[in-house]
């Protein structure tokens, strides 16, 4: 790092800790109040309890919504990552203007407001004679998470020596066998990263789900939004929120650990395959 002087170092420190506080304070507050023995989340704290967790878990509507969202998120992440791999392989064959155009088209959902996508999807589905359904939510989430999958998978594919594929073909492998035996194992770390990002994005997505989820089958964010207006449900919501925070933290830590382990296993101890920076960065910021 460049020497920044005493004042520079101080302001950098202040900035960093202010940033961390701003980012994590709401999460910490949520965890603290989930164990506060009071119906209302206000200070002063009135004693430790775990009853809200018991109550939350016995609220079948709430747990149902969480399970429903997890299912949607899991399906979305597998679906979007598979599509992302296919799209990335296609992009590898393009050059110049065609590549720029294809990338711009595929990444378009990043800059389109989710609410517009949601309205458009609903109209499209109704035109096709289908109404809201959990499948429709998955489709909508696949649209918005596909760009993330491509952004993670494509750099990884690009980092592979194209001669490896040619070597596999040269040694008698079909294109499919070359992909299955050579390319696929080498992009596993990117698939894990992509899966996590798509899962998290889908899990807390509200706008699209609110348009496409059928009545009586709310996703977790929809249920939360509806229940914050019911004071009696607030402690349950806070308790589940705390659990989700801790669970996603554990998920990301485990996945990152797994990714590193896979990386080491791929190339053997003491040697490192170059990991695209974007991929590592995205997998770190994924929980936010």
């Amino acid at each position, binding site marked *: 790092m460049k020497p920044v002087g005493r004042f520079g170092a101080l302001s950098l420190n202040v900035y960093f800790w202010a940033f961390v506080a701003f980012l994590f304070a709401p999460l910490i507050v949520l965890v603290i109040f989930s164990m506060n023995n009071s119906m209302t989340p206000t200070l002063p704290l009135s004693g430790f309890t775990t009853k809200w967790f018991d109550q939350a878990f016995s609220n079948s509507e709430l747990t149902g919504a969480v399970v429903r969202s997890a299912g949607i998120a899991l399906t979305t992440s597998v679906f979007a990552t598979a599509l992302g791999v296919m799209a990335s392989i296609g992009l590898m064959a393009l050059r110049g203007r065609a590549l720029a155009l294809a990338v711009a088209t595929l990444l378009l959902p990043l800059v389109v407001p989710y609410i517009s996508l949601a309205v458009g999807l609903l109209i499209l589905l109704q035109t096709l004679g289908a109404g809201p359904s959990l499948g429709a939510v998955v489709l909508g989430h696949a649209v918005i998470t596909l760009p993330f999958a491509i952004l993670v998978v494509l750099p990884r594919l690009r980092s592979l020596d194209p001669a*490896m594929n040619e*070597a596999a*073909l040269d*040694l008698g492998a079909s294109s499919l066998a070359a992909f299955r035996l050579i390319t696929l*194992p080498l992009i596993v770390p990117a698939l894990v990263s992509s899966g996590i990002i798509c899962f998290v994005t889908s899990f807390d997505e509200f706008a699209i789900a609110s348009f496409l989820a059928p009545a009586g089958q709310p996703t977790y964010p929809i249920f939360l939004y509806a229940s914050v207006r019911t004071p009696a449900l607030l402690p349950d919501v806070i308790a589940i929120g705390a659990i989700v925070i801790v669970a996603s933290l554990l998920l990301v830590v485990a996945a990152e650990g797994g990714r590193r382990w896979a990386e080491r296993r791929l190339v053997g101890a003491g040697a490192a395959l170059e990991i695209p920076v974007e991929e590592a960065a995205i997998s770190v910021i994924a929980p936010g």
Partner: protein
Amino acid sequence: MSKGEVSLVSLTKRFGEFVAVDAIDVQIPPGGFFSLLGPSGCGKTTTLRMIGGFEQPTSGQVLLDGRDMTGTPPSKRPVNTVFQSYALFPHLRVFDNVAFGLRRQRVPRAEVRQRVGEILELVQLGSLASRKPGQLSGGQQQRVALARALVVQPEVLLLDEPLGALDAKLRRELQLELKQLQNDVGITFAYVTHDQEEALTMSDRIAVLNRGRVEQAASPRELYEEPANAFVADFLGVSNLMEASVIGPSGDGVEVRLAEGITLDAHHGNLATRGATKVVIRPERIQVEPAGSGGANRVPGMVTNVVYLGSGLQLTIHLGFGRDVTALVANTDEDTATRWTPGAPVTCHLPPTAMRVLGNEQATQLPAAAHSVDEPAPTSVVP
């Protein structure tokens, strides 16, 4: 008929407007070590990729033992490649890398183990079978790539500058090993390189490529001693190219005029040539003598630069009529290194048997990076 004969029949590859390979006809004899030699961008790698099936020719044919291979995918050709980057599979152990091709052919498990073991012994990697490629040195990786391609017993092995990434000392070791290996296995090797010394060391036959065309295809000795044109003379080692005019027959050869009042005899090359052309002489064939020594085929000059090479001295000598030549003096006695100094007047003996007349119909342009000590060659030579 011996297997592994490759014929390229007016093979052409265009990338848009750019003609990478321009209707070349090359015969690669079976069981030999054949090199495609040329500067970067001459089309040698594209040619190799067409033999391997990774590029489709725009027109022309690749024949393998008389069978047309055009349109046959790489996986169906009895030809294997050692890639410049080695292209080892980083997630597979050395053993599995080498076994890859055999397993694609559904070779029984026990036979896979036996054949992989044998080939790894052949390239001296028997003890490293369970390592991953990332844990090997560059030279070891190169051997894995070689073993992986050889184990499937191709009729032709293609090698795309496989020693390019290695340091000079290791390169020289592996050059000899590779040649030895080729002798042992008896498979046709088609080797791409831009390094003329490497090509000369290893090859039975070399095709010199330039701008998508074959300049000359011959044995290393022929290419060096009897270059067909200025490009070949210049690309294979340092050579002195001099513009000259052929006057007429003289003794065993012809009389050439280098400049006003400077006429020499030349005994080799295209002796039917008359008029303006070029003559070439290798630096090691120029005999540098003390100033004033008499005799035929001698030109006075002055040393302008001396480079100490260890095994000898490389002298730049400015000849009286305004031309620089490079001469190589072997370091044969203790005075050699100090005898020649810049500014010293000398006499250059250019023996008639070392003087080679080039044909004057070709108008080859020299590459920008050529080691010519000559002035830029004119692009057209009037017959």
